[in-house]
């Protein structure tokens, strides 16, 4: 992947190229589970791309193990999950554990339909950040960037 960009992993082609930056952060984006609402995730993919990050877009119907495999293969710096299925309290912590068990110190950022009162529980379970509905492009980019910085301690 010499030029980065949002990569379509099924077809293996580069569709979009980001602006060049000194260190290109690599983010895996996925829908975890059965939920098919992918509008938000696609918009986030383009927002992160426009900010200079490299997006590995897994798309729909991913499992914790398919995401762990992508993080390993792509040497990713963060995982972004989008959840609109009200399954976040089960699946969010499960994702964090799966990365831990694989020995990957990679922050997980979750966006989508997350009630405010669930945010604390997700953060306590090791999720790095939660982005609510209506988060701005700047907030999206900053939360991913600072999650990566924090994980590098």
């Amino acid at each position, binding site marked *: 992947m010499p030029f980065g960009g*949002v990569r*379509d*992993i*099924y*077809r293996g082609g580069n*569709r*979009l190229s980001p602006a060049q930056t000194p260190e290109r952060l690599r983010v895996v984006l996925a829908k975890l*589970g*059965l*939920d*098919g*609402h*992918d*509008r938000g995730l*696609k*918009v986030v*993919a*383009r*927002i992160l*791309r426009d900010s200079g990050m490299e*997006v590995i*877009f*897994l*798309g*729909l*119907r991913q499992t914790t193990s398919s995401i762990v495999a992508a993080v390993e293969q792509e040497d990713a710096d963060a995982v972004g999950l989008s959840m*609109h*299925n*009200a*399954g*976040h*309290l*089960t*699946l969010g912590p*499960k994702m964090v554990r799966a990365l831990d068990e694989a020995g990957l110190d990679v922050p997980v950022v979750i966006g989508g*339909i*997350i*009630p*405010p*009162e669930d945010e604390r529980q997700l953060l306590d379970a090791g999720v790095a950040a939660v982005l*609510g*509905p*209506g988060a*701005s*492009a*700047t907030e999206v980019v900053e939360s991913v960037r600072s999650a990566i910085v924090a994980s590098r301690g």
Partner: protein
Amino acid sequence: MGEDATDRSASEDRWRAAYNAGTRRDVPYETMSGVPLEPVYGDAPFPGQFPYTRGIHPGMYRGRLWTMRMFAGFGTAEDTNARFKEILRNGGGGLSTAFDMPTLMGHDSDSEWSEGEVGRAGVAIDTLADMEDLFAGIDLGNVSTSMTINGPANIALAQYVAVAEKGGVDRDRLSGTIQNDILKEYQAQKEYIYPPRPSMRIVTDMMRFTTAEMPRWHPVSISGYHIREAGSTAAQELAFTLANGFAYVEAAVAAGLNIDEFARRLSFFFNSHSDFFEELGKFRAARRIWARWMRDHYQARDERSWQCRFHTQTAGVSLTAQQPEINIARVALQAFAAAAGGTQSLHTDSYDEAHALPTEDAARIALRTQQIVAHETGVAMVADPFGGAPFIEWMTDEMERQAEAVFAHLLDLGGGSILEGVYEGIENGYFVGEIADAAYRFEREVNAQRRIIVGVNAFTEGDNPEKSLLRIDPTVEEIQLKRLGEVKQRRNSDAVAASLAALGMAAESPDTNLMPATIDAVKTYATEGEITRCLSEVFGTYTEAAIV
């Protein structure tokens, strides 16, 4: 318009005769201040006349108000059954079922895919036993039911028929709609199971089955709602939805049905978003386009085949998590657009849905909102109340023009067939690409503050998100797993195996209708997952190319 006075008055006479022949609600047809009102104002063609731009009925809501159909579903079948009864008690006229993600994707609650999602975004239905609980104590001969399910629609319809017949209600008395619009799944909502072509065979089998045996059932609700929610523009919603409608017509005709036997049972489902005038133009254009294409392109002869009937839901995506109470105002305006646009039924969203499924209180306010629109605003007094206004007529023409450009593109892609063009557009990423581009464009405008969303990027003071939300009982998954286990214990496993084998045979033979074998299978309490696996062994499964 070039229409002479004699034609106009002939149209008016015909309209008046039709209007007088219809039934009327017993309410005063006057303004709040007592000014008497005509049933319609302006020029021909009148409501109930081709191309139905002004509505499909001569008297529109003077005959009957739209159906207030509130969508509900969560937790176990028993939980949803209680909500259904609440809706009926509160004056809702029809039931509308939301299923959970595993059910929508053809997975049982005990599948590894289902972890964390059982009963969360809708009700969990694994076997006929759950469907029996869902409609317990409700007379299915006397209620109209909508089921929002697509990939496994044949299974849900089979379960509904089986429940009714166990309760002594014959299938020909059942009234309702099953969404069963598989094409928009590949384009927008993404709840598909099999590849497009075998999925279309299931849809056409269901159309043949309901045409022959369930005359009061709507076998497909062709849905723009999800296309819009996924980010399309109003014109794309209109164009893609009607194109899908044409595709079903072509597929059903190719499967041997006569167009006038089934077309009147097709219905549509649109989104009502916040730009009032654009929405109004969209609704009016939808009727006109459908009428013209059905009569002139597909040569339908029955007037009912020309009439575009539709359900509307206010735009879930427009609801803000910030200052949730202000969503009540958004929903009211969107509901007003749908009513002014001549919808046949309406779901109004609840103000708290940006965070979770609605609480009972919020759902009641949403129902009350459309009751206010119906009974207090005067919109139900006069058909097509905005018709004839230059801006509205222009907007209607503009929506139609944009949609026609899309049809031309699809005809080109499909070598003269909209059906083939839609298949091609699914395969080559046309639909998902167009929708994603529109969604991103909108998001950038919001981010740049070129487009104001109240409470989100302007007027942000006063946010008080600490509201009580609907909490799904965390034990739902456990309860449902236990229930599924018990049903599996109790049933006759030989009968299940035999019914699945017969279903597999039916699937192998393209000329055999799948519905009878599906009904036989659900009656043995075969699970949804078992039936889906049986069919996917023949049909295969579909995975979308991950296109951003």
